[in-house]
């Protein structure tokens, strides 16, 4: 019999909680020590009774469903803000591989052309006026391509996720507008550095409003009538705007002037118009139905 009795290890041995090598050595001692053997037998008897007692109570079969129900009911309202923000960020970033890849170079090219034309026209037209023509066109093309059956190679993926198509639309819009904003802002800063811009804020103000309005209008048109219609309308409006800006005295485009003025504006109303167009797109999405989108695709 060993002089040391591992009595503190016996309850854990009875519970099956001892690491294998320790269990073997304690077990070895127990076999040679009558008092430890009696002690272990006592722990085993207690363990059996405790286990029996604890397994007598089974939870109701619908408890998991109730937990899930409670989480669904309060998901949006009571998630910690940090977790919600992270989830939203993941959602936005997760759209990068899913949206059409042409969006990125197309936007970059249009905005770069705007910047080059601004430089070439220095002295003839203000950089703000030129950027106010090209930045909105970049957003219009990008957002026309953002959603819909003909633009969604990842539609199966989208169907497999529990995220609502509305949220996906807003996430993609955020991503594309974010990209266009970054590009346009970079070009504006460069123009400023090259002395072609003037004050930065008024310059940004000139293209920001039209960019949001034309972009969101195209999104709504793409959702409602398809990408081709959206791009065609955007190009027509854009051409009309160029004509109007370059030959203000013509009067040919007089009937279109209120529409063009409504799009090419930079004030609080611009944000309201863009927000309304976005709301219409979001509202239209589930009415189209994913099934319809698949059929059309």
């Amino acid at each position, binding site marked *: 019999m060993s002089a040391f009795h591992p*009595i*503190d290890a016996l*309850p*854990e041995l*009875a*519970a*099956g*909680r001892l690491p294998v090598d320790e269990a073997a050595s304690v077990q070895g001692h127990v076999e040679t020590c009558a*008092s430890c053997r*009696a*002690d272990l*037998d*006592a*722990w*085993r*008897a*207690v*363990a*059996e*009774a*405790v*286990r*029996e*007692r*604890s*397994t*007598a*109570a*089974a*939870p*109701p*079969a*619908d*408890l*998991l*469903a*109730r*937990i*899930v*129900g*409670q*989480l669904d009911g309060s998901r949006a309202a*009571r*998630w*910690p803000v*940090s*977790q919600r923000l992270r*989830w939203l960020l*993941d959602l936005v970033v997760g759209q990068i591989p899913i949206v059409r890849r042409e969006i990125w170079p197309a936007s970059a090219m249009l905005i770069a052309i705007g910047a080059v034309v601004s430089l070439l026209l220095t002295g003839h037209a203000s950089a703000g006026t030129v950027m106010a023509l090209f930045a909105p066109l970049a957003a219009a093309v990008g957002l026309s391509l953002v959603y819909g059956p003909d633009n969604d190679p990842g539609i199966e993926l989208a169907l497999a996720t*529990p995220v609502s198509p509305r949220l996906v639309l807003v996430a993609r819009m955020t991503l594309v507008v974010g990209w266009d904003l970054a590009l346009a802002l970079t070009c504006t800063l460069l123009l400023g550095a090259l002395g072609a811009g003037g004050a930065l804020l008024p310059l940004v103000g000139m293209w920001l409003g039209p960019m949001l309005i034309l972009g969101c209008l195209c999104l709504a048109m793409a959702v409602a009538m398809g990408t081709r219609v959206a791009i065609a309308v955007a190009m027509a409006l854009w051409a009309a705007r160029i004509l109007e800006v370059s030959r203000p005295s013509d009067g040919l485009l007089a009937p279109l002037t209120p529409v063009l003025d409504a799009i090419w504006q930079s004030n609080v109303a611009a944000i309201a118009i863009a927000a309304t167009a976005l709301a219409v797109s979001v509202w239209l999405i589930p009415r189209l139905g994913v099934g319809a989108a698949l059929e059309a695709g």
Partner: protein
Amino acid sequence: MPGSVVESDLCVATIELARGWMSDRPDDDQAFIGRLARGERDALEHLYARYGRALYSYAVELTHDRGLAEELVQDTFVAAWRGAASFRGQASLGAWLFGIARRRAHDRLRRAAHPTMELDSALEVPDEDALPEARALASATRVALRDALDALPLHHREPLSLLLAYELSGRDIGAILGIPEGTVKSRLHAARRALRAALAEERTR
């Protein structure tokens, strides 16, 4: 359909019960909690399959009230889902969940001034000779032992359940009860002495 999910999870829970409830792999715990923090629904379902039944049984033990125990389990999983991002892996996943359940039980019972949670100041049972005590427990009938367990105050019964029924480690039990691991061991021995005393009392009755 939620109903079928629950049923299949009950099957999983039964299998998990047979295997033992606890994981000894902290890396697994961390990966699992990461999935929970990202809001993956099936992570919650697996968590329930693994711990739901044990937590419910523990909650019944703490409250002596099945309805309240159901609410506690619900609270615990909702809290785990929402707080998964704050899990630091200092204790095991099991200890974390049991700790949440215990804190919530304390909160609720304190609010209701419930009589079943005793303070730790209950009578200590004198240390009698270990060998006769062990033999008396080993030879007691199962019914007598269960009755004696029922008669035991919670602060004695709780460490016994956490180790022997829910199979948590001494370290985890210490984390749940807020005491050092060494104290867990002395609590277990004190609980067994109290159980022996309760057995003797049953017999004289």
